């Protein structure tokens, strides 16, 4: 078995623990928390509450018999199908394509990816106390772009076959996986409070085309590759409250999830570069590096109401502080911070600790709102619908193929079957419609000084995603 085959198998197993492309967010930025489907929200009482609002694990499920203790086990899986494209026309910042390489840096890059993501959790209620644990992936994704068949087996140029978008993304994964424990207390059956502690494993593993001066030169200097593979463990926490303002009729919830690491995250690993030259037999280098980044806090709020026994209505939303995601900076292992000035050039006195690569993000705070409802045809059969909107976190100036975001609206519909209080299963489909973006002439990335300069990312961005969600819950 070749290395590629090995890696493919392992990569796919790994991908099973991840959701989506980095750019295929189901919410703003690259937030992907949609586990639980329409039943994952800040007033829910199933184990997805461990993330959305830990107070929810102490809530009783309407219609369930009052018991001294109760266990809920929840397993969830999403299958996401994503189509995306980026079309770029030659700009003033592009290095002219050499003879025979026309179409190497201009045209359309496309992908169609299908990715699965699991979530699992369990809660244990003892009278008014509740405890729980869960695994989920609220941030992240992966992408693999199609090849540019025009350059397959090209006799002169090794790089362009990886697509016109290769200067920003060829393939890769970015993700933060959570293992979380939570506790909650239900005060007089009217107000629940809860808190969670998260252990977060974050990884960035991506490859892009690159030259040392940050341009999209194909031949002089020769196009190369940079592959970063870093990871790290961090902690975070969540807190929440749910008020049952009308007994078994209306619930209001609010929660807060702190950013992983509670601030700046440091991911350690390797940076592999290959800046080729025909005069040198082996131009590959590898060095130990750290990636510095910051992920957002998430504030959530929601209302759930059961005006009549057969109907439930839900409205909820989130605010995600993507404004803290201002850069992804790769620094030498010996460095402690990203030493760049206001124009993102390395500080003059940075010396050997100067950043090796700094991808400017400058994202902004984003929000999402969602409304939906359920109708019980009979107590065992629930039909549910939902619709929502997510705002865009990424300005035109720094939008690039590796991490994209759009204004989007989504609609969902599904069915949940219950077999008494013990077993329930749900299946739903959500389609996300993304408003296309045209940032031609807007990209600031090529105007920055090295090491922050990257090729012009202006162009037309399109995307659409379909998500099939399935989950089961066992309660006893």
């Amino acid at each position, binding site marked *: 078995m070749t290395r590629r085959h090995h890696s493919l198998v392992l990569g796919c197993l790994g991908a099973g623990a991840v959701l989506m492309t980095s750019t295929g967010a189901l919410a703003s930025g690259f937030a992907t928390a949609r586990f639980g489907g329409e039943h994952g929200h800040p007033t829910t009482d199933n184990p997805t509450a461990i993330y959305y609002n830990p107070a929810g694990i102490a809530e009783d499920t309407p219609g369930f018999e009052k018991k001294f203790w109760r266990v809920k086990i929840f397993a969830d899986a999403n299958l996401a199908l994503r189509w995306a494209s980026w079309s770029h026309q030659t700009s003033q910042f592009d290095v002219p394509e050499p003879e025979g390489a026309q179409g190497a840096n201009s045209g359309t890059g496309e992908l169609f990816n299908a990715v699965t993501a699991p979530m699992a959790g369990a809660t244990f209620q003892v009278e008014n106390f509740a405890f729980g644990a869960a695994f989920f992936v609220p941030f992240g994704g992966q992408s*693999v772009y199609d090849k540019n068949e025009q350059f397959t087996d090209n006799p002169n140029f090794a790089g362009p076959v990886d697509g016109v978008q290769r200067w920003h993304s060829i393939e890769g994964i970015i993700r933060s996986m959570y293992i979380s424990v939570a506790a909650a207390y239900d005060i007089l059956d009217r107000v629940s409070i809860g808190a969670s502690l998260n252990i977060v494993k974050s990884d960035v593993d991506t490859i892009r085309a690159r030259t040392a*001066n940050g341009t999209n030169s194909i031949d002089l200097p020769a196009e190369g590759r940079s592959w970063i593979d870093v990871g790290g463990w961090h902690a975070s926490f969540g807190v929440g409250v749910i008020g049952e303002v009308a007994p078994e009729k209306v619930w209001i919830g609010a929660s807060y999830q702190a950013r992983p690491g509670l601030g700046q995250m440091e991911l350690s690993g390797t940076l592999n570069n290959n800046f*080729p*030259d025909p005069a040198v037999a082996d131009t590959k280098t590898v060095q130990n590096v750290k990636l510095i980044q910051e992920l957002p806090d998430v504030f959530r709020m929601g209302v759930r109401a059961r005006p009549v026994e057969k109907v439930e209505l839900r409205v909820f939303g989130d605010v995600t502080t993507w404004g803290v995601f201002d850069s992804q900076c790769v620094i030498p292992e010996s460095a402690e911070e990203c030493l760049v000035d206001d124009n993102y050039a390395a500080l003059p006195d940075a010396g050997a600790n100067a950043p090796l690569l700094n991808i400017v993000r400058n994202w902004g705070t984003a929000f999402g709102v969602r409304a939906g409802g359920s109708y019980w045809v009979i107590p065992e059969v629930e039909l549910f619908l939902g619709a929502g909107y997510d705002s865009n976190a990424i300005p035109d100036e720094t939008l690039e193929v590796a991490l994209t975001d759009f204004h989007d609206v989504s609609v969902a519909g599904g069915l949940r079957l219950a077999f008494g209080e013990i077993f329930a299963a749900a299946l739903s489909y959500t389609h996300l419609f993304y408003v296309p973006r045209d940032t031609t002439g807007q990209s600031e990335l090529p105007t920055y000084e090295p090491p922050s300069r990257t090729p012009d990312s202006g162009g037309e961005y399109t995307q659409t995603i379909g998500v099939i969600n399935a989950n089961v819950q066992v309660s006893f």
Partner: protein
Amino acid sequence: MRIARPLTFMLLAGSAVLLAACPDTGASFDDFAARYEEINPGTSSSSGVSACEVPIADDAEVTGDWLFTLSARLDPKQAFVLNASITAELQMDGTMLVDMTLVPLSADDQMTPVACPAITFEDLLVNADGTFAWLLAEDTAGLTLCGAANPISGGDILPGLAISGTICGGATAGFVCGPVTGKVTTPIPNFDLTGSTYTIQKISGAPPAPVINCDKVPAEYM
């Protein structure tokens, strides 16, 4: 049985769809290197240094200020530029000993000295036929080119550095060029400079524009 075949096909198709989305960054990195190697089978450069047709007759031809341009293969046209203050002394056997002090010039204008330590070399040997091969810094103890003079990344560079060429009189007087070898230790450990070039141009009056190689290709800056 009739339904088994379509079901099998659907399962295989579904699996293929899932596999298609699996990133394999390491393989992608290696695939690129393999494609490049196939297009450009590995070669090694030679210095190609040959003796002068017209050797230096007077060390005064060499003594003075020169413009030293170092073109790294990472980004050949954005070359480092340094002022080289040279003192040469012809020896009785026709060889020449050279003292050279390099002062890095700003990456912004290639003219202004930057606040970095000067780099000094003494007793560099030029053979009687004008050829030389100078090991300016061992790979393990590279000299420091400070970030302010680095037009590529703006960070400090610690290269091991060796240059070779000829210092001649006659038609080529005042211009020296050739290949650079050595390995960088910072910021890219073990980065091989082979394939890089340098030039040294005598300054007589206004400084010349930096050129990156023996073909006198002009340096270009963003």
